[in-house]
């Protein structure tokens, strides 16, 4: 029966093609011509074999990684107003707010203000800072209404994405300009935000270009510190940006996008007044933030089985904080994707990044030398092999990177997916990832405290970077299982075991004498080395349940255990225990969305985060809820309450001491979204 249909289907197609051939060739471009099949009956149409199965974007359920996608509906229903709050819903992610404008976010452990194991990108452009390897979440200010989706992969994404993608990858993909036409106005205010708003306009220019321009602003009040006084962490930011999508030809498209921003933020910062100070003193400091970026992406289609992308970007920022960090970064990336035969799908690429730093420095923190530039050259190759078509896929790949500090690194991985059926699949992977040294690892100078010996010698305790610091390495063993049960429930499991070696540690160095700043003093340095090893392991379970036509529940639970220890002859007794206890053992989350009526939706979410043993931060539960009302087709009103359970609570005490924590407050806001 099956064979007969197959042959029959071929007959249909052949007959049609023969007919077309008999009618003669058309002079027009084949890619724009279509077959008019409306004369065929339904039964015949059902037997036509179609050759192009969508698409270059892999079917989500076939990905051999722990992947989670945040959709525009998830964004609207969560009531989140920034990216960090959005990431709270993702299993395996550790999201902790340090103060009003600073977050510690990582995946699968090793969290901190400058957590550098997570690669964050916007439309494929890296947005982490090469200074520390961490992400400035405050200036990662994306118009949430323009997000097409956010893809989060927990586990090393190093093969395709490169160094820094040790524990996870977050890619924020924005909507095409053609999908955001017309005028959009968003405005709101709340008890913590005196005001926020976005104005955006999108239109078509010429026959082939869609564009949008936008401007957004927000202002957030300060929260209280642990002494119940004003924490001074209020801030505001104004951003202006654009995007244009041009269809250059049938085979070429060009995306151009960019934005510039300016803002000011306050921080309760510990500073060292002089080299004789016994320790840092808390001070209210303000930093001016400014910067901008420009990105172009050119996509060229060779055939329907092969396409390539060339992207170039510039990113510059300046922060008038204690470091006076001012940096510009250029990226150039090329990627080619093609299918070979019936069973192989290749992606390969080359990348180049050049970044230059221009820092001011202060007594507490500086870079030596203050101005330097570094570059990274990389290449990768990945092959997805259909070992058994529609059943078993094996992906093999490697990335090779060369950076200024640590030379070459190879990041290979092997991944396999087995599909039991369209509704059940299992995957497993082994991969190696590397975190290459950041500028801070190599050039940092932190002056921590000073004292005077009885004989009059001035002594200064400092932390120094190390030009010979090595890459931090991890070998990750992962596995997962996805299934759909019945027609309303889907479950996703992911488990991992990561072996870390050559992790950063702080070792006592040889004391040396220094003449400046006066008075001359003896420096007792601790130097960055790589003498910590260990492992982490954990399990993440996610479930999505459509309880009724109008009610959906999303729930997840994850646990993680971190066991780092120092390798002799290390004398660092602090880093390993601090790392072990800076991530909660358990997260549990549940989100509910109910369509009360055609126009009114009610969302509620609860997130439980376990305590941080090394920091003495107790466990807490965050409860958010929101009501949204589609007043007309064009106007939506919403009211959202966040952190409703406690008036204020502590989430994270960062051991780097770069900034002080404040207590995260209960808040609520109202918002109007109007498009016309």
């Amino acid at each position, binding site marked *: 029966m099956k064979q*007969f*249909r197959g042959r029959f*289907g071929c*007959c*249909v197609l052949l*007959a*049609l*093609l023969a*007919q*077309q051939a008999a009618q003669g*060739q*058309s002079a027009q471009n*084949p*890619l*724009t*011509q*279509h*077959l*008019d*099949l*409306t*004369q*065929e*009956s*339904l*039964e*015949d*149409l*059902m*037997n*036509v074999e*179609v*050759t*192009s*199965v*969508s698409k270059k974007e892999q079917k989500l359920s076939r990905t051999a990684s722990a992947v989670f*996608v945040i*959709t*525009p*509906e998830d964004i609207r229903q969560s009531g989140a107003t920034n990216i960090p709050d959005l990431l709270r819903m993702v299993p395996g992610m550790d999201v902790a707010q340090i103060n009003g404008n600073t977050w510690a976010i990582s995946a699968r452990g090793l969290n901190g203000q400058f957590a550098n194991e997570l690669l964050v990108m916007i439309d494929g452009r890296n947005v982490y800072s090469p200074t520390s390897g961490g992400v400035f979440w405050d200036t990662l200010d994306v118009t949430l209404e323009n997000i097409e*989706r956010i893809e989060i992969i927990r586990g090393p994404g190093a093969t395709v994405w490169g160094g820094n993608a040790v524990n996870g990858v977050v890619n924020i993909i924005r*909507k*095409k300009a*053609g*999908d955001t*036409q*017309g005028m959009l106005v968003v405005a709101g205010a709340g008890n913590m935000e005196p005001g926020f708003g976005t104005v955006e306009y999108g239109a078509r220019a010429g026959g082939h270009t869609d564009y949008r321009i936008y401007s957004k602003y927000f202002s957030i009040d300060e929260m209280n510190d642990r002494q119940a006084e004003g924490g001074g962490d209020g801030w505001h930011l104004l951003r202006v940006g654009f995007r244009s999508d041009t269809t250059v030809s049938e085979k070429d498209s060009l995306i151009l996008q960019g934005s510039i921003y300016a803002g000011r933020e306050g921080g309760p910062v510990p500073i060292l007044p002089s080299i004789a100070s016994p320790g840092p003193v808390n001070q209210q400091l303000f930093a001016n933030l400014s910067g901008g970026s420009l990105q172009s992406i050119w996509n060229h289609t060779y*055939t329907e089985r092969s396409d390539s992308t060339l992207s170039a970007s510039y990113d510059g920022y300046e922060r008038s904080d204690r470091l006076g960090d001012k940096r510009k970064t250029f990226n150039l990336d090329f990627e080619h994707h093609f299918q070979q035969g019936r069973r192989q799908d290749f992606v390969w690429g080359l990348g180049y990044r050049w970044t230059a730093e221009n820092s001011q420095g202060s007594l507490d923190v500086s870079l030596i030398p203050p101005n330097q530039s570094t570059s990274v050259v990389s290449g990768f190759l990945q092959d997805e092999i259909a070992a058994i078509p*529609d059943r078993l896929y094996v992906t093999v790949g490697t990335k090779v990177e060369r950076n200024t500090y640590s030379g070459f690194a190879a990041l290979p991985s092997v991944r396999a997916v087995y599909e039991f*059926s*369209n*509704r059940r699949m299992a995957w497993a992977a082994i991969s190696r990832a590397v975190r290459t040294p950041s500028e801070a690892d190599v050039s940092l100078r932190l002056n921590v405290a000073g004292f005077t010996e009885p004989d009059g010698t001035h002594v200064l305790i400092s932390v120094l970077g190390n030009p010979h610091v090595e890459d931090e390495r991890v070998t990750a063993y992962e596995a997962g299982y996805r299934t*759909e049960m019945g*027609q*309303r429930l889907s479950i996703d499991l992911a488990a991992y075991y990561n072996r870390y070696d050559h992790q950063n540690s702080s070792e006592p160095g040889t004391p040396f004498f220094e003449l400046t700043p006066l008075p001359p003093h003896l420096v007792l340095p601790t130097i960055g080395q790589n003498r910590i090893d260990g492992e982490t392991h954990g399990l993440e379970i996610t479930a999505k349940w*459509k309880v009724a*036509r109008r009610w959906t529940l999303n729930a997840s639970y994850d646990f993680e255990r971190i066991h780092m220890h120092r390798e002799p002859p290390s004398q660092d007794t602090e880093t390993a225990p601090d790392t072990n206890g800076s991530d909660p053992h358990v997260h549990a989350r549940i989100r509910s969305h109910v369509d009360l009526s*055609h126009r009114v939706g009610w969302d509620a979410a609860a997130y439980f985060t376990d305590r941080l043993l090394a920091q003495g931060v107790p466990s807490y539960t965050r409860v958010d809820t929101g009501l949204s009302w589609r007043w007309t*087709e064009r106007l939506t009103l919403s009211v959202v309450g966040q952190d409703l359970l406690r008036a204020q609570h502590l989430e994270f005490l960062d051991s780097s001491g770069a900034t002080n924590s404040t207590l995260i407050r209960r808040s609520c806001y109202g918002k109007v979204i109007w*498009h016309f």
Partner: protein
Amino acid sequence: MKRAVTLSWCESRKRVRAYAGSKNLKALSLAVLLVTASSSQPKASAESSANTEYDVKAAFLFHFAQFVEWPPDAFKDEHTPLTYCTIGEDAFHGSLDESVRGKRIGNRELRVRHLKEREQIDGCYVLFLSAAQRGRQGEPLASANGHPVLTVGETEHFVQEGGIIGFCLEEKKVRFEINLEAAGRAQLKISAKLLALAKTVLGNRRED
């Protein structure tokens, strides 16, 4: 009490007994095909196999409108054209426009409108949500709910989310599933012939 038929996704191993398939029908179809093929007006050379999937789906959309009955008050008068709407980027790349151009169903002209995101769906009688709409079909489906709009999609869970007809691919052939309950809410009557050809039907079935 009628029970709902369990919906299954397009699994290559499963066969739904309602699927039409007698050898006689095949032979007849082949004969019919050869006749129609010689009298059809093909557009151009067929090197563009890249678009075959959407050419086939465009033809399906044309047929769906032939086998679905809209309530009499859905159209202002007999001259109101039957409008197909797509949202966002045109997944058909013009194939749908070309397929329905100059044709009529039940003496109604056919028209295609390409809506922008967030644009209103008034005046749409068939609404097609492409795979690119994944994750944001909630709003268009909610807008169409209860109105005489035939919602057609191609994401895996389209009919469970309230869409009326969902495309799927099985062994490189286009199949479709029907949500009869959603059709009922839209006051649309789906002919038995279309139901018989559907891979699966969610909702109440007379035979069961």
